């Protein structure tokens, strides 16, 4: 089988990296051209990724990997390299495709921004790091790109740094994900310590955990798996580290679509999928993943019901959907998780870009201030509707098939989690119905002059809408092609009529109730608010998690910070000043020697050698 494109897969991240270099170097003068440089670079990467994927789909090409020795110290060798498997090929296509569409869309969305070329430079760097992460063949390089991706997220969330909220959100995103990163780093060190030959490449990890059970004790395996999962929890916004993701919506909307919906947040899921052998070796870790995933799914979906900011609703929805993916991983069905990641990338990017189109047009993010936009923004409304249907899990849209795969797997392993998943699916449909009907249906607001966005913005919407519709057919209960392609074995593919009926039914029920409440008015909107104001308030305040963290962590840490500041002012600064003083005293002594008098130099040299001779050789003779 041909591996021509796979052999050159390392080029995929190089194109955006080159774009980043060009844009940084001479960005300021480029503006519009700069935007095209970024777009074209991602497009080239996309074509390349597509070729790699086609190559892998058309024949059963063997996995391709290549390493170089990066550093060798004694027996320790650190390699760097890339690996192309079906999993990475899939991720490459998702990242580059969404990246390309977002680039295209941003040309319209960001066209009036002063720092547009900086924006495109950051996006290119992000794309490049994400692709590097996907291609990495070992955990160490993976970790380096993982951190780079985090840095790009920080830069882009805080892109409008003039806004204090954006600055705070960027800081929060960075600090909260750092907690997860620390877990991953410790896991990496543990693996390094315990792995035979200190190997960190995925192939060896696979061999050690999959085939030679017992090489590493179960306790350590569980610990490593949980720490890796902590990293994934941070990046993928899972409970309890989900707090940063909704705040990250302060960044420009295309970024929310690219980073905080379709690609970077999926890195956590990808990490678990990539190191899945470690998780499979520990049932305790698997259960943790499943429970956290299911809990996050329902927890975030319930918050989504009571939010009023269009982007925040979508953000909680992202958290919730990532919870589904984790649930799928936890019930030992990696293909289902990757399948949902695949479909979710398209419909969530679609929804965010649609939301961006709305915001761009009406200049507000509060859905209570919108209404009736459907008539003025036909394309946005239609494509957004398709995204909403896909997210709500209505057949035959893609979200239905992938959610169905997850729910089937959950029913198989943990029926209770299946119930949680179904309830979360109902919530999902309900909040999407609320969102869609409030924004696009109903009476238009007075004084709002909404108009359809330009074609650079609507074309990506249409492309994504098509994908959101059809992407689900790669794996249906009647056609297990995707799962088989991804894992290489048949199995794990049951038709469950019950699940299909239940999942479609709750989706439709959610939409119907939403329609009754927000369009028809049969059910009064304040039906819940009036009966249980406490519950609504709890949801609106997002279960007070932020406040709780404020009291539990931020305040005490600030207290410690204050105490340390005092310590720093008096003790550390004292030492620093002393050091500084002694260094500059030495410096002064030095300048005194440096008098410019050449005879003084010669004398110093003479004294120097006499002292050296007496001190070292002299002691032998006395």
């Amino acid at each position, binding site marked *: 089988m041909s591996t021509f494109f796979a052999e050159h897969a390392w080029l995929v991240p190089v194109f955006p990296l080159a774009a980043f270099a060009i844009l940084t170097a001479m960005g300021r003068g480029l503006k519009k051209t700069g935007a095209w440089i970024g777009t074209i670079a991602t497009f080239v990467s996309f074509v390349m990724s597509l070729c790699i994927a086609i190559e892998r789909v058309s024949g059963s090409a063997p996995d391709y990997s290549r390493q170089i*020795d990066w550093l060798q110290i004694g027996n320790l060798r650190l390699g760097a390299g890339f690996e192309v498997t079906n999993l990475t090929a899939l991720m490459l296509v998702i990242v580059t495709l969404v990246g390309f569409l977002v680039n295209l869309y941003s040309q319209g969305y960001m066209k009036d921004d002063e720092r547009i070329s900086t924006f495109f430079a950051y996006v290119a760097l992000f794309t490049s790091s994400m692709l590097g992460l996907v291609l990495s063949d070992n955990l160490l390089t993976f970790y380096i790109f993982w951190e780079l991706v985090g840095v790009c997220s920080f830069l882009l969330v805080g892109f409008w740094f003039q806004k204090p909220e954006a600055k705070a959100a960027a800081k929060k995103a960075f600090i909260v994900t750092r907690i997860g990163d620390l877990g991953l780093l410790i896991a990496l060190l543990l693996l390094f310590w315990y792995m035979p030959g200190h190997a960190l490449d995925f192939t060896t990890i696979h061999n050690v955990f999959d085939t030679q059970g017992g090489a590493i004790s179960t306790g350590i395996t569980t610990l490593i798996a949980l720490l890796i999962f902590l990293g994934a929890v941070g990046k993928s916004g899972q409970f309890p580290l989900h707090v940063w993701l909704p705040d990250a919506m302060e960044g420009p909307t295309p970024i929310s679509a690219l980073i905080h919906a379709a690609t970077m947040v999926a890195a956590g899921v990808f990490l678990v999928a990539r190191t899945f052998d470690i998780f499979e070796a520990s049932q305790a870790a698997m259960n943790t993943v499943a429970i956290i995933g299911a809990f996050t799914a329902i927890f975030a979906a319930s918050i989504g019901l009571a939010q009023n900011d269009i982007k925040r609703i979508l953000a909680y929805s992202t958290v919730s959907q990532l919870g589904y993916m984790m649930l799928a991983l936890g019930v030992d069905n990696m293909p289902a998780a990757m399948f949902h990641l695949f479909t979710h990338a398209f419909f969530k990017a679609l929804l965010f870009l649609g939301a961006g189109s709305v915001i761009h047009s009406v200049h507000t993010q509060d859905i209570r201030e919108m209404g009736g936009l459907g008539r003025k923004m036909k394309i946005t409304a239609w494509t957004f509707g398709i995204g909403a249907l896909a997210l709500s899990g209505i057949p035959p849209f893609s979200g239905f098939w992938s959610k169905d795969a997850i729910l089937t797997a959950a029913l198989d392993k943990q029926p209770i989690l299946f119930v949680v998943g179904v309830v979360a699916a109902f919530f999902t449909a309900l909040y999407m119905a609320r969102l869609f009907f409030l924004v696009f249906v109903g009476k238009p607001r007075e004084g709002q002059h909404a108009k359809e966005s330009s074609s650079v913005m609507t074309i990506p919407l249409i492309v994504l809408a098509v994908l959101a519709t059809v992407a689900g057919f790669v794996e249906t209960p009647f056609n297990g092609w995707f799962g088989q392609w991804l894992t290489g074995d048949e199995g794990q593919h049951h038709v469950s009529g019950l699940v299909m009926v239940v999942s479609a039914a709750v989706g439709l029920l959610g939409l119907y109730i939403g329609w009754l409440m927000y369009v028809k008015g049969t059910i009064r909107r304040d039906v819940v608010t009036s009966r249980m104001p406490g519950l609504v308030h709890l949801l609106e305040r997002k279960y007070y998690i932020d406040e709780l963290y404020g009291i539990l962590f931020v305040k005490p840490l600030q207290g410690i910070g204050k105490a340390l500041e005092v310590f720093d002012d008096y003790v550390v600064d004292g030492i620093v000043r002393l050091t500084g003083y002694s260094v500059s005293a030495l410096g002064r002594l030095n300048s005194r020697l440096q008098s410019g008098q050449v005879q003084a130099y010669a004398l110093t*040299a003479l004294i120097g050698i006499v002292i050296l001779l007496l001190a070292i050789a002299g002691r032998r003779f006395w």
Partner: protein
Amino acid sequence: MPALQTLTWSDTWYLAPEIVLSIAAILLAVVDLFLPKRINRDVIGWLTLVGLIAAAVFVVLQLLSLGSGAPTDSSPGAYNLLAGSYRIDDFGNLLKLVFLGASAFIVFSSLGTVRDEDVPIKGELYYLILPAVLGAMVMSSSGDLITLFIGLELLSITSYVLVATRKRSRISSEAAFKYVVTGGVASAFILYGMSFLYGVTGGTNLLALLKEITPALENYEALLYISFFLMIAGFAVKLALAPFHAWAADVYQGAPTPVTAFLAVVAKGAAFAMLYRIFMNTAFFTMGTEGTMKKDIFLGLTVLAAAAMIVGTVGALRQRNVKRLLALSGVANAGILLTPLALSLTEFHASLFSEFLYFLIAYAFMNIGAFSVLTIVSRDSGNESLTGFAGLYHRAPWTAAAMTILLCSLAGLPVTGGFFGKLFILFGTVQTHTYWLSAILLVTTVVSYAVYFAFIRQMYMRSGALDSGLRMSAPAAITIWICTLATLALGFLPMPILDWIDQIFSIPTDLLLRG
């Protein structure tokens, strides 16, 4: 002692690089003399470059003909010429390549950058590089004290002239004068030390010395101590090790910047080459009673290395003049470069030469790059103060970026050649359990961040008086970028280079002159 051999025709092949340089130097001196005044002397610079490259090609050919690994009949490890007073081996060839390459970059980067108002005798500036490099090559390729000393003097005397080429500058003349005096003192120290060595052993050939040194040790221990410590002092002055470094700041400041770069890289490297040649073949074998003398000599070198790191780093902290700052940074780096030799060759520490050469290569690239940036920036701002770098990022972002990488390398931050160079040397100190030296290396490295970050602060966070773009000649720009990329390459791919050195270099034939 074998009878003195005369030079044969076949030897000229082995001496080809040296012969090429000699002929080029003489020819260019004549050309410069007869070339009409109105012709730009850059043409001499280009011809100098051709001479350097031609010599380098011959060195590469010899490197290949010597082969790698253990010596065999078809590819002997080394050629001895003139009864062992001249020696073609991998040690010499590798260092010659560094010297020729560094000089070529220095000449190349000054083309179109050195101004006639500053250096009225530009032709001399170019062609005098040739005998200077020739001296450096003799220093790295000799097996006899006298030949080594001749090489040293050839390099030194040419350098004195080179420092003085800014004829209209008082500071340049002063620098040259100081350099003559201190350089003379250093040569005197070395020669005095050598004469004691000759006195107690009766030989100047390093191989012959070796046989005599053990008997001499019994009778003349004190004289040998004096001999070695005098030589240490002399080399310490040449290498600008503290406390023998005071001349460096004055001379570096006064010399034209390309010459400063030459002194910092080639002259320093050549002095190290000579130090390796002499000490690894004499002091290394002074076993004596319980080997105390050998320990003492190498301890002396270690102390000097430590002192240089401390004094250089601390001194650089207070400097605002960039050339003086880089001179003091060079003092600290000389301490680091001395460390592998000072740790000596033991069963735990056999990689001294590869550690040294790797850092020397990294040091050459980062210094030549930094000096090239300095030349351009100081020419533009009209002074050599640190504030000349203010706002460079806003005027020339690429140059600022390149300088940032070079500075990271000087500071020893990853992922650069400077980082790995220091790392390998640090491993050496750990392998030999010289932990106090590791501590000094680490602490001075951290302190040095403050020195180099002062540039970065100026470039990125201060706004300068000028806001027009930076004018620079194409050769200078190319040099800066090659140096920057090489610095990065050394950081990303340290192993191939280190492996290559290890593969070529063999301790018995190349370091210890056996065979």
